[in-house]
């Protein structure tokens, strides 16, 4: 009996060793590529800025204080950093609006593709992914070309006599939104399509048969069943949207900054790495809280059904 127990112990030990060995690559990547840099950023946020960028190894909470508060350069009093708050608010608002807009445009698109005959669906999906072939910067400049004052839209509007002044679209929040919706739409369409493709359209027929109108079928049958796709798509759009850098800097001009631009400013011209680091962690916290609230609310009603 004792030998059997011993053998079992040995096997168990070997299994544990194997487990660590096999998961080592994943652990190394998580430690080096994800947690490591994050810890450095966290560390930097509690240090003092160096005169030419970089950090000095003295502990300071000044970086965190200046995320939300502003120190008057003359009398050292603190007041709300309204510029930061404006940027926070704009980022959050634009990211939410872009998510909503991609959902509104993406839902019918995905539904359209999912209801095509099987052999033509791939062609439609292929068309959706074509923009991915081009660099993000170039796509953003393409949007700029379309909406600028001398761009296609304004030229057309003026030539048609609808307006005699070009409508200022570029360098506004609207421009950033358009750019983000254009860039992130496939990220919404693809997960939506994936869950719609699995949708049993006989259930849609059953809904119609049981006196549900088109709107009720959408609300009560299609939407609950593709909810995983809606959640996945929204997360995939919201996260890059709130951290968007290229789009706001090209289409928003200098004054319509978003989070990423502000962070870049601190690490670049601002030479305030601790503030930049603190801002980065703030964004992460906001994204995490937003996702938690969102996922809990959207999957909550699912759980209530059973």
């Amino acid at each position: 009996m004792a030998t059997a127990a011993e053998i079992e112990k040995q096997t168990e030990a070997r299994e544990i060793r194997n487990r660590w060995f096999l998961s080592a690559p994943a652990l190394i990547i998580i430690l080096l590529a994800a947690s490591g840099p994050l810890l450095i950023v966290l560390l930097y946020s509690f240090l003092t800025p160096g005169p030419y960028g970089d950090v000095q190894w003295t502990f300071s909470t000044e970086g965190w204080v200046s995320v939300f508060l502003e120190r008057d350069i003359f009398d050292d009093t603190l007041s709300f950093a309204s510029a930061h708050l404006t940027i926070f608010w704009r980022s959050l608002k634009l990211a939410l609006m872009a998510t909503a807009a991609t959902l509104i445009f993406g839902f019918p698109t995905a539904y359209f593709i999912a209801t095509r005959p099987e052999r033509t669906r791939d062609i439609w999906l292929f068309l959706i992914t074509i923009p991915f072939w081009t660099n993000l910067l170039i796509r953003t400049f393409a949007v700029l070309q379309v909406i600028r004052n001398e761009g296609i839209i304004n030229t057309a509007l003026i030539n048609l006599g609808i307006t005699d002044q070009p409508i200022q679209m570029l360098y506004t929040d609207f421009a950033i939104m358009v750019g983000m919706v254009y860039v992130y739409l496939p990220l919404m369409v693809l997960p939506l399509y994936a869950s719609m493709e699995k949708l049993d359209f006989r259930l849609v027929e059953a809904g119609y048969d049981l006196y549900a109108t088109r709107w009720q079928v959408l609300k009560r049958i299609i939407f609950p069943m593709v909810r995983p796709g809606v959640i996945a798509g929204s997360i995939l759009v919201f996260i890059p949207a709130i951290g968007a850098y290229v789009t706001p800097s090209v289409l928003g001009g200098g004054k319509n900054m978003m989070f990423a631009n502000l962070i870049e400013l601190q690490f670049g011209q601002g030479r305030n790495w601790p503030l930049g680091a603190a801002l980065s962690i703030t964004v992460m916290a906001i994204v995490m809280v937003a996702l938690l609230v969102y996922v809990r609310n959207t999957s909550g009603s699912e759980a209530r059904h059973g």
Partner: protein
Amino acid sequence: MPDTPGKNAIEVRGVRKVFGTGEAQVAALDTVSVSIRENEFFTLLGPSGCGKTTLLRLIAGFDFPSEGEIMLYGEDIAPLPPFKRPVNTVFQSYALFPHMTVAENIGFGLEMLGKPRAEIDARVAEMLKLVRMEKLAKRRTSQISGGQQQRVALARALAPQPKVLLLDEPLSALDYKLRKEMQIELKRLQHETGITFIFVTHDQEEALTMSDRIAVMSSGKILQVGSPRDIYDRPAERFVADFIGETNFLDARIDGIDGSKAKVTLKSGATISATLPDGFKPDGEATVVIRPEHAKAVKGDGDISGVVENVVYFGTDTHVHIRLDDGETFTVRQQNARGAGTSFERGERVGIVIGDDAAQILKD
């Protein structure tokens, strides 16, 4: 009931349904007309691709006819969307909503009709009782068995009290024993609710045992409508005779007609009396069908004669395959009685006695 013409619940008038366009056009239904009476169990029977499901979908409103009218109690419903028709469907796949409980599924139709909560709850409870599923009301549809899902699908379709219930091969996914049970269950439900049932199946036995009337379909056409007995005993067309049950086909010449009967001479020279189908245009030649159990093999002389080729024992009865003198084969089915009964040997010469009223002439 089948023979007393009542009010018509559904009247299908000259309905054509064409799928595809141009060269690839296929007529799934080719000018079909049929009347379905109030409170009857009406079956659309035919092989797959005969258009029976297409006809059902047109009545449900999932597809729209290319031509023709579908009247529900005198009102043309063909252009209405499914949610405006007082008609419900039991789907072949059941199509239960997986994100809802059994009770929520059953109450869905009433909810969509905007009924008050109390009424919905009362009706759902009533339906759960009707299909004997009270205990599983709170279950998700994925947590119940196939037979139970079938009952929920039935209850869901019956809950809004439709004028007509459409059933699209609802029993095909069940195993044999459960199917038998559900056949009886369906008949009971139809009887208790008094709702007109239109049942689609490719299973002739199911059709014969359950229906008040059957419409046999093939290649987008309705070939014959009648009671199970009519369809079985008096098949009007070769397809009907062949599709339902086993039949002996014999070539014959018509010698004379007397009312609904005709004197025919079979190829073997024997002369028998056979029933004419409605709307028959005599042109001398005809095909006569005789069901195997409507004929009897005897030692000695009969109406026709031949040599026993094979004897197959089936328990309740025995099939005797006989090679007729003209080269055709003929099957006779004899019931097996204890002790008594004639037994036949292979190669034995036998006579076949064709019962009165056993022979039926086909239209085609």
